[in-house]
């Protein structure tokens, strides 16, 4: 980590923290050096907290004039070698997609926290609604792969933010943190591990040891895609020019490169699915009914499953921590022998339910439990489980 400071890491111990604050502390622990943001309701605490904390650790927190400027600023900061991030909500996200597309093309790493709120339009600003998932997957013009992580409590907001920064450094693609208005404002106890333990996990931004054949995408020994370390402007480790058109590793663009370049942007994620795809299983060994979910609804599902198990119903939870890229193979295996699949989600369409439908057999019923601006009650899920058993 280039900026060493004792204030960067909170002393080891237990804290009670708001979700947004826990996320900010996670980012600081991961080595955040530049934050650019614009106040927007469910995410405002992030910029408020970092405005105080960033100067303390020698970093920069800037309140920009709008979302467009803030995402461009973090991209500029990332270009000169600072780990950077922004936090916003739905309407701000809509403004930022243009630059996300450019960053994906130039492979500039940064982390993007989306504290989702109700929509469309302005919506109810303090209510949760997982409605930006589609936008995350297809953010911006062009085809490229993204990574999105869905924490479900404050502890995970801290831990997964560090993971998100590591993914950004390794795969150099837009990395999203899926939060929402409730998760961002929940106050919970979290444990912050000692500094040394965090430092071991963090992948720092630094120049590679070897500058020779500096920007090759294909490893000559294994003939596989590799993602070189991100270039840093102001050093010798830069391509001829940064141009957001299909380009070769040295920065020269050509129409002939369009196909291999697009392929590279998508395959660098696809071929590393085993490392990127994080999932969790709960009582799934003998389950006949499978609940697939992510984020807050998972917490409700735990309770529903426990009650149902007491009633003798074989039900288990498959939890997606990495929502995008969608783990096709893993889900396929889980739903193979399932009688029914229940997908509780904080949206009406069932953005992930659609993905599950894609990999399930036609006979298997997929039951959505939509909720908007509200929590699931365990009874909502139990009802559906009992219905299936009947």
């Amino acid at each position, binding site marked *: 980590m280039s900026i060493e*400071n004792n*204030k960067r890491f909170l002393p080891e111990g237990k804290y009670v923290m708001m979700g947004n604050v826990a996320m900010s502390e996670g980012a600081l622990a991961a080595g955040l*050096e*530049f934050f*650019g943001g614009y106040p927007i309701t469910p995410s405002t605490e992030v910029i408020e907290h970092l405005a*105080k904390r960033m*100067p*303390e650790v*020698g970093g*920069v927190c*800037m309140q*920009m*004039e*709008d979302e*467009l*400027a*803030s*995402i*461009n*600023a*973090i*991209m*500029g*900061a*990332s*270009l*000169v*070698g*600072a780990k*950077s991030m922004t936090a916003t909500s739905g309407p701000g996200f809509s403004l930022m997609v*243009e*630059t996300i597309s*450019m960053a994906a093309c*130039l492979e500039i790493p940064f982390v993007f926290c989306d504290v989702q709120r109700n929509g469309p339009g302005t919506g109810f600003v303090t209510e949760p609604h997982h409605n930006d998932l589609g936008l995350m997957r297809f953010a911006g013009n062009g085809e490229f792969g993204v990574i999105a992580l869905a924490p479900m409590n404050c502890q995970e907001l801290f831990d997964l933010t560090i993971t998100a920064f590591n993914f950004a450094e390794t795969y150099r693609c837009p990395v999203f943190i899926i939060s929402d208005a409730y998760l961002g404002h929940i106050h919970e106890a979290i444990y912050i591990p000692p500094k040394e333990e965090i430092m071991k996990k963090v992948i720092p931004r630094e120049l590679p040891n070897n500058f020779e054949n500096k920007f090759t995408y294909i490893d000559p020994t294994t003939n596989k895609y590799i993602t070189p370390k991100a270039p840093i*402007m*102001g*050093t010798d480790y*830069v391509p001829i*020019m*940064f*141009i*957001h058109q299909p380009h070769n590793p040295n920065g020269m663009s050509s129409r002939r490169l369009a196909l291999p370049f697009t392929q590279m942007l998508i395959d660098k994620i696809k071929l590393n699915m085993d490392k990127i795809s994080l999932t969790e299983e709960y009582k799934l060994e003998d389950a006949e009914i499978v609940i697939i979910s992510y984020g807050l609804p998972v917490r409700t599902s735990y309770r529903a499953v426990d009650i149902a198990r007491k009633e003798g119903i074989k039900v288990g939870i498959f939890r997606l921590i990495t929502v995008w890229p969608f783990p096709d193979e893993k889900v396929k295996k889980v739903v193979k022998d399932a009688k029914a699949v229940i997908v509780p989600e904080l949206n009406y369409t069932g953005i992930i339910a659609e993905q599950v439908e894609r990999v399930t057999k036609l006979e298997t019923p997929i039951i959505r439990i939509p909720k908007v601006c509200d929590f699931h009650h365990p009874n909502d899920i139990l009802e559906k489980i009992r219905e299936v058993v009947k």
Partner: protein
Amino acid sequence: MSGLPPMYPSEKPEHPYLSISMPGKYFNSYFSLFCAGCGYGIIGHLFNRVFEDEKLDPKLYPMVIGIGCYSQILLSLHHATQRILALHGRAPGLATGMKMANPKMKPIIFSGDGDCLGIGGNHFMHICRRNLDCIIFIFNNSIYAMTGGQGAPTTLFGAMSTTTPYKMFENRIDGIKLALTAGATYVARTTVAHPRTLMKYFKKALKHKGTSVIEVITPCVTYFGRKNLDNLGAENLDIKGQKMENTGIMIDWIKRNSIRINQAKFMTEEELLNKYIIGEFKIDPNKPEYSEEYAKIKKIAMEGK
């Protein structure tokens, strides 16, 4: 007449600044992708001259280039420069991030009239307000030339363009006045017809600490000149105009249409309609610069007061 290209003596002296541009360095010739009569070639060359003469460290002066015709300057700039093509209008935002993450840098932003005053007006205004240490070039050809000659926020009153086929009836924006109001601390305007002034202003801006805005009036013969008469801006004087079909006429027009700042003081608003006032408008080295101010905040925060 033979069809042979002009022959040069074999001991042709090499152009002193030929080998510093990227094509000069790698292909030993100067070429660009600009139309015949375009002013960006002049600007690129002058930039390279200053870059070479002042011996600027390319690592400390990153180039941030917006979207427009001038984006092709990427290919003909000094071979050592580190350059990035920004999104349309977002170059000031990108430069802010670069400067704040590495305060030793002084980004040089190339942007056009549509890029900087149209789509990126907000970002331009706020980079001036913060007085961030950087140089902003606004290349004003008063038209959206890359997309084929549409009317721009800076198109002169009464001018023809593809989206104003009858005549331009909107009021134009003055980038210099906007920069002054927003709080830029070095503000100047010149034209490609005054190349030495352009170099002088650029050198001054390099030494200045704070936002420097230099507007450069350049000719666009292909999309602006061919559609307009060279009495544009002087219709009331009853001069018969001719189409600005080549660079000579257009450069002449730019020269006639530019009024020195001292002279402009004695002219009325009406007389100055469609005229370009050139010169240095403001030099204020005392206004606090943003990254230095932020460094002070960091110091306060680190000491824990």
